[in-house]
């Protein structure tokens, strides 16, 4: 990034900040992260609509579909300013960040017409129907079947970790249409009110409910539900990967806020001894470097650089480590219901950081094999 760019982003930041500060916040809006709970959906939707009306959703989409064709740096700066302002940057990650790019690249003209507008303005909520109980880290082993019928497709099986599914209008479904592990997968649009589709909320270990199980019992889809070609599902799913890296840096903003609260709590509890102080100093450095590394990667513009590859691992392990410190800064006040204390809550949900979106073990495999060129395991 040259000096000129730096200047641009600086002025953009000021512009974002002014916009976000003056924007009317719907009652009940909070920064719930990438995924809303059922209670978050209504305020999140209203907020998304307001952002859309001001041209701040789907920033990475091409202009012809209502996007801003924004640079990586632009998107990153907006995400970070949202985090700073304590608001989500969109209703839910699925529609704008997963479905949008897939439809734009592989959807039929009819599919683009029918779905992109609703995603952009937040009228339609989408959910992701990828993971299955038996296919977590090993996504390609999924077993939900899509059978071609005279009128379209019949779906049978079960999905899990579908965010906001109970409030969703549509789902992006990855299902099996053939025996080949990767080439036997295809991708579909599922109207969530299709008969035979049942949503069951899943409660997480912290007691909140952001995800769902979705059951398919001979759910019938029309022929035009297929996105791209039969057997192209895995390729399409891969399009969605890596996008989260672009906003990992914004997580650091929330971490800095949490860190400050934790230091205060430790001092209030008389627990800020030199050993804890050292730990909090190191964690602060990690957060600072996380943001710096992210900026460095963004500036380089190379989404395949090592710095980008390691960001997921850096972010999730640092954030989790921060959450783990709750007992150290709160003492016995960590023994309260997570719903009653943000730090305790973070201690629990932090465990998901190294699991969801690719376990740390999978991340290390990817780094070892794709970045460092180490041989795969024999199968």
């Amino acid at each position, binding site marked *: 990034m040259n000096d000129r760019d730096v200047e641009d982003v600086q002025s953009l930041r000021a512009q974002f900040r002014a916009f976000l500060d003056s924007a009317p916040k719907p009652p009940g809006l909070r920064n719930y992260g990438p995924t809303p709970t059922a209670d978050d959906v209504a305020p999140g939707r209203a907020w998304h609509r307001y952002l859309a009306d001001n041209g701040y959703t789907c920033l990475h989409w091409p202009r012809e579909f209502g996007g801003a064709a924004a640079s990586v740096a632009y998107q990153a700066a907006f995400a970070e300013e949202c985090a700073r302002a304590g608001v989500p940057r969109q209703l839910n990650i699925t529609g704008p960040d997963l479905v949008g790019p897939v439809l734009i690249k592989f959807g039929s003209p009819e599919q683009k017409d029918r779905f992109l507008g609703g995603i952009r303005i937040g009228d339609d909520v989408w959910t992701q129907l990828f993971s299955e109980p038996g296919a*977590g880290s090993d996504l390609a082993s999924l077993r939900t079947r899509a059978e071609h019928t005279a009128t379209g497709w019949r779906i049978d099986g079960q999905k899990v970790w579908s965010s906001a599914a109970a409030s969703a209008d549509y789902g992006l479904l990855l299902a099996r249409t053939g025996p080949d592990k990767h080439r036997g997968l295809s991708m579909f649009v599922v109207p969530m009110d299709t008969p035979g589709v049942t949503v069951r909320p899943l409660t*997480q270990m912290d007691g909140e409910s952001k995800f769902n199980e979705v059951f398919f019992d001979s759910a019938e889809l029309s022929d035009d539900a297929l996105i791209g070609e039969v057997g192209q599902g895995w390729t399409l799913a891969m399009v969605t990967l890596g996008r989260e890296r672009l906003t990992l840096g914004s997580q650091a903003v929330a971490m800095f806020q949490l860190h400050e609260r934790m230091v205060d709590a430790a001092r209030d509890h008389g627990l800020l001894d030199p050993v804890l102080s050292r730990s909090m100093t190191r964690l602060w450095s990690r957060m600072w470097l996380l943001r710096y590394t992210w900026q460095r990667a963004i500036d380089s513009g190379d989404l395949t650089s090592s710095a980008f590859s390691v960001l997921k691992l850096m972010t999730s392990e640092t954030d989790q480590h921060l959450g783990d410190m709750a007992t150290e800064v709160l003492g016995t006040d960590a023994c309260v219901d997570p719903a009653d204390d943000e730090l*305790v809550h973070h201690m629990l949900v932090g465990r998901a950081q190294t699991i969801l979106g690719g376990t740390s073990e999978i991340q290390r495999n990817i780094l070892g094999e794709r970045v460092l060129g180490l041989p795969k395991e024999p199968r």
Partner: protein
Amino acid sequence: MTALAEDERRELAQSVRSACERLAPEERVRDVAYGDGEARDARSGFDTGLWDVLCNQVGVAAIALPEHLGGAGYGASALGVVAHELGRALAPVPFISSTVLATGLLIDLSERDADSEKRLSELVEGRRTAAAALTGDGGMWRRNAVTLSAGRSGEHWRLDGTVRHVLGAAAADDLVVVATADNGQPAVFLLDPTVDGVAVEAERALDGTRPMATVALNAASAVRLSGDGPVDDVVSRNVDMTLAVLSAEQVGACERVLELATAHARTREQFGRPIGSFQAVKHKCADMLVDLEWARSASQAALEAFETDDATIASEAEWRASMAKAVCSESLRNAVHANVQIRGGIGFTWEDSAHLYFRRARTDEVLLGAPAQHWDRLSTLTKLL
């Protein structure tokens, strides 16, 4: 004190385990600790049925009671055997809070009169429970962390102040509390929670199997148990004994968590093979095993110091208790983290048992002092540095 013979240990452990397996399977524990049905008695947070069986059929509350008080007269290791099994099952019973800590203080401080003998026999039979409030927040025992104050009022004493995170207080029939008396010294009092000026409010706790309450006192009438002399030693010794027994619960939980993680790793398949065949998972389990053995040794060393005839070992009871608390807390913490990670998305759900042990681990970690505080105490007591 009599130490248990090896076969007696095994038999006792088996009795407790059978009772827990029969009466407190995971579903039942969830109902008692987190349910909103009849199993959850909001006032107690305990499984009274299980406690009744444990007291009256196994005799866990009498096991360490001195023989002259009608107990079995066994020592710390017997308590440790019971605690280990209760920890495995996350049994929601007032063993640590009532049997070990509060009853321990009552035995050491009560006059031998009919009242107190009756109270002890009811405690032993599980017909009543007691809870102890020592410091303002249930953390590290230090006399300057006492927040209650006591003033003389004729024959009686009046207590004022608030203590939080009192383990088992909502269900307790007796409260044993430490308050600063008018001479500026801490003293121990027995308090009836039903008298005027006592408000006991159950807290919304992280670990439903460790129910806590806030006790607010406003000129509440109480009986002084300790004389005019300093009580630091007797409180400290009972706290250390409690730490040692608590560490055995932690070891039990740690052992169970390792079983749960390895069982999952043996059967859950990803990429066409059981995940336990991947070194990332296998080595995590191996590290859990190493951590478990560190914890087992630390806990055993602490319990040993409370029932040995060897004066040198006995003199190490304080720092051994602190070491046990620090080491077992860290081992259990590592274990529950590894367990969630190994169980993956499943381990992150409410339905899975992983979070039950997670909540227990993080709670036990800070009860009666966090590892940091116990490491420092260990270092001071051993004059290591």
